[in-house]
């Protein structure tokens, strides 16, 4: 009984000590949370219009990052507020809204919009007002001519040269490397840009280009194109596709009883291609997938889980973190690093810091000291295996046991 009473007393004393310690520590915890006037970061996304579906991914990623940053110390101890406007998928509207953010709303900092045309429209405004702009989805780096514009995705300064060689290196590693190639591309600027690079690099490396075809962006009827692809019967089919175009190309080929030997797709909708039987062993560009070694990078597992939860709640068709969402996460990581590194919200100071330093992001360590403020190219290759995307090249990024499968 005495013992029991002693136990009771010890428990209560211990609880009292813990409680008192917590009470004493509380002010210091409160001091760590960001406070004061919020730092307002303005940006637009194409929340309506033809780019809306992809912009939703960016919006969710941005919200996750703003919460994450505010959960740390905000920007310089102040909470971060994301002032998000809808550019309606129109570059002219994007331009006017960035002017609104800067000259009327007087935001402290800006973030880039989604897609090349709105980014270029916003970049002009940023340049006129001397603002740092970070973007993640401009596939033609040479157009980023503003010295305070920074890429959040590691395309490298010349992806039209570097990435085709990554692909050709992967192909060369196969037991039977392809000797001929068919290049098929949408006339969408960033896809066409890469396709032309692919043609040049293939010819340089002795892979014979049997057919180079361009189709109009938004084309739905690939019957005639498929017939020519089948007739060429190359060892490797490279498709500069967007959205569902790859599925449509492969379906048209299937109707002709033709299965391409090896096939690569540039920017397809990830879910439909991986899940389609036509997409078996399809190769595709990526920068990150929710697997090792990427998940071991700091914070990625948490971000991937948060993204999955929110994307599922928002009824997104593909609720798994990929390069689109990662691009926006990287944008915020770079901005946070720039502000913390410069210890200032001054755009020039942030830009100066970023040019001289590296930043650890979801994509790994990025630097911005090369042409067009780009660093190393880190474009990878993933393959649809068993209905899932798996990074297969370069091999150092492949998960244990995952290998590139050839025809």
């Amino acid at each position, binding site marked *: 009984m005495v013992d029991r009473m002693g136990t009771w007393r010890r428990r209560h004393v211990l609880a009292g000590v813990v409680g008192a310690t917590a009470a004493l520590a509380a002010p210091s915890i409160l001091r760590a949370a960001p406070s004061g006037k919020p730092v307002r970061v303005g940006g637009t996304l194409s929340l309506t219009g033809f780019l809306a579906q992809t912009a939703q991914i960016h919006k969710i990623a941005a919200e996750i990052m703003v919460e994450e940053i505010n959960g740390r110390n905000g920007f310089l101890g102040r909470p971060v507020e994301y002032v998000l406007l809808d550019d309606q998928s129109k570059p*002219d509207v994007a331009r006017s809204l960035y002017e609104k953010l800067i000259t*009327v709303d007087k935001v402290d900092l800006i973030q880039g919009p989604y897609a090349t045309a709105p980014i270029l429209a916003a970049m*002009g405004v940023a340049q*006129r007002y001397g603002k740092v702009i970070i973007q993640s989805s401009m596939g033609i780096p040479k157009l980023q001519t503003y010295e305070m514009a920074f890429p959040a995705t590691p395309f490298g300064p010349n992806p039209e040269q570097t990435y085709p060689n990554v692909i050709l290196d992967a192909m060369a590693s196969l037991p039977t490397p392809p000797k001929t190639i068919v290049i098929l591309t949408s006339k969408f*600027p960033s896809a066409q840009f890469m396709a032309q690079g692919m043609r040049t690099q293939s010819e340089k490396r002795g892979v014979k280009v049997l057919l180079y075809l361009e189709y109009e*962006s938004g084309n739905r009827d690939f019957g005639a194109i498929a017939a020519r692809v089948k007739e060429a019967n190359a060892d490797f089919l490279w498709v500069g596709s967007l959205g569902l175009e790859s599925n449509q190309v492969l379906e048209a080929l299937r109707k002709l009883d033709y299965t391409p030997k090896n096939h690569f797709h540039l920017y397809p909708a990830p879910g439909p291609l991986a899940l389609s039987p036509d997409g078996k062993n399809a190769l595709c560009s990526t920068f990150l997938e929710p697997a090792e070694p990427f998940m071991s990078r700091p914070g990625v597992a948490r971000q991937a889980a948060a993204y999955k939860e929110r994307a599922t709640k928002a009824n997104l068709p593909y609720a798994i973190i990929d390069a689109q969402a990662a691009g926006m996460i990287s944008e915020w990581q770079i901005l946070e690093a720039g502000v913390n590194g410069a210890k200032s919200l001054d755009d020039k100071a942030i830009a100066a810091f970023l040019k001289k330093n590296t930043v650890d992001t979801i994509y790994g360590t990025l630097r911005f000291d090369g042409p067009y403020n780009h660093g190393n190219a880190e474009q990878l290759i993933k393959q649809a295996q068993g209905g899932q995307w798996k990074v297969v090249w370069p091999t150092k990024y492949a998960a244990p046991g995952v290998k590139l499968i050839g025809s």
Partner: protein
Amino acid sequence: MNANALPRLAAVLGIAVFAILPTAGVPAFYESFFYIVFFWVSLSTSWALLSGFAGYFSLGHAAFFGVGMYTTATLTTQFQVPFLATVPAAAAIAALLGIGIGAVVFRLKRLRGELFALLTLAVTFVIATIILNTPIDGGAGVFMSAVPMPDIMPTQTGTIYVLGFAMCVLTLAIAWKVAHSRLGMGLYAIHDDEDVAEAKGVPTFRYKMAAFALSAGIAGAVGGIHAMYVGFLTVGGTFELTVPLYVVLMSVLGGSRHWLGPMIGATVITTLLYAFISGGEAMIGRAIVGLILIVAILWLPDGVVPAVQQWLRRRKAAEVEPVAVVVPVVPAAARPVGDRNILEVRSVTKRFGGLQALDGVDLDVREGEILGLVGPNGSGKTTLINVISGHFPLTGGTIAVDGVEIGRLPAHEVAGRGVARTYQIPRPFVNMTVLDNVALAATFGGPTRPAAEIRDEALHWIAFTGLAGKEDSLPAELNLHERKFLELARALAARPKLLLLDEVLSGLNPAEVDNAIRLVRAIRAQGATIVFVEHLMRAVVELSDRIAVLNEGKLFALGAPREVMRDPRVISIYLGKAYAA
């Protein structure tokens, strides 16, 4: 201050305020926002010049706008032409494109309505494909960041604003001028009934070409300026369907037949689109904008401006008694018929494929004469009226009016040579008031006169036909009797040498017929020469100096009324035994 001075003063003040905005130190966003408003005002107003005024509904405005954008982009980036110099070039090339399309499609009557809309849409795709597959774009897009902007204003945004504003003012000035000119009047008539417009003397082909060139040219110039605003052009972004859809929506909301309508629509819609830009309300905002537009269009199907005009007219009508012009009673005594032939029809034939509608008709009508044209249904009476008035081209033979050959002339030139006609079923211009209907006929059918004189002339014939007090009414507000008389007033306002009346008495009750007969006599008493097609034999006998009977496309009988009526052959084929008895 008179009633016109206030709007003018407001317009001048408005222009002055907007012109100095870039120097007032307002945030650049407002310059950008107003630029976007100016952009849509110019684009939708330019669309309305052809599609609203003339009724040629185009879905291809993106083609002209896009041609303008790419003209400026190509000239500035590939040929280093200064930006400002490219804007007139953009307008010229877009206008030439419009003229080229118009030269083909406006010659074909079947390419009206939805076919014209689809054709213009197809043109957009063709142009986009050409630009996409040539070095003009090639698929890579055109980046214009290196193109220098002229220093018109202290900032780039200010300069773009001023250019957009100037374009907007110029566009509205052109629209106002067109709406208040012969061209505008002709286009409105084309909108309502192109065939009748042509018959009333409107050179429809030329006017449509002018409207198309203006519409396309303005869209091209707007595109040229907008290329600099956007900075990066892609074919997909330039030739997208939202451009024609927006301009149609804006014009329809404001009122596409009024020069100011598209401006109201464009301002309202652009402002609404910018009212819901916050990331949290984007989708709901779009839905609200859509709902507002649906409600507005349901409640105001003709647009905001016409609705306001209608309301003002109703208020005015309630307050002010209509001023009836008193016309002296015209003596009903007939002038003697002259010896000179006003109309000479020689061996006229008209075939529709295998059908011989007219087969070698010879007919003279003397000055001041009333010739009754009768015959069974399908005998060729209305066809003869149609070939004389130029509505149908001749297959063979000649037709001369007052000694001048008109058989191969288009209808508007026939009208210009003094031939006016009415229609069996009245075909007034339904969106024009009674006064405007008659004034149009006086403008295009008669000699060139000042506007005030034309108005007086129109009022005279309105009163003459007993329509005084109905000047501001729309044709839909008239009964059949009044619409028939409106047909007469329009025909008379052209001061014709030859008046062709097609069953002007059909559908009237006996009292109205008596009234109409008196009116035709009064017209004839003023010296008009009349050919009138009629089935009502009492009127034919009472009015005609001679009667011509057509049967199976041939002149069957011709002579004095009593003689022709007694001709057994005429009784057999047309009048029947009952009438003979």
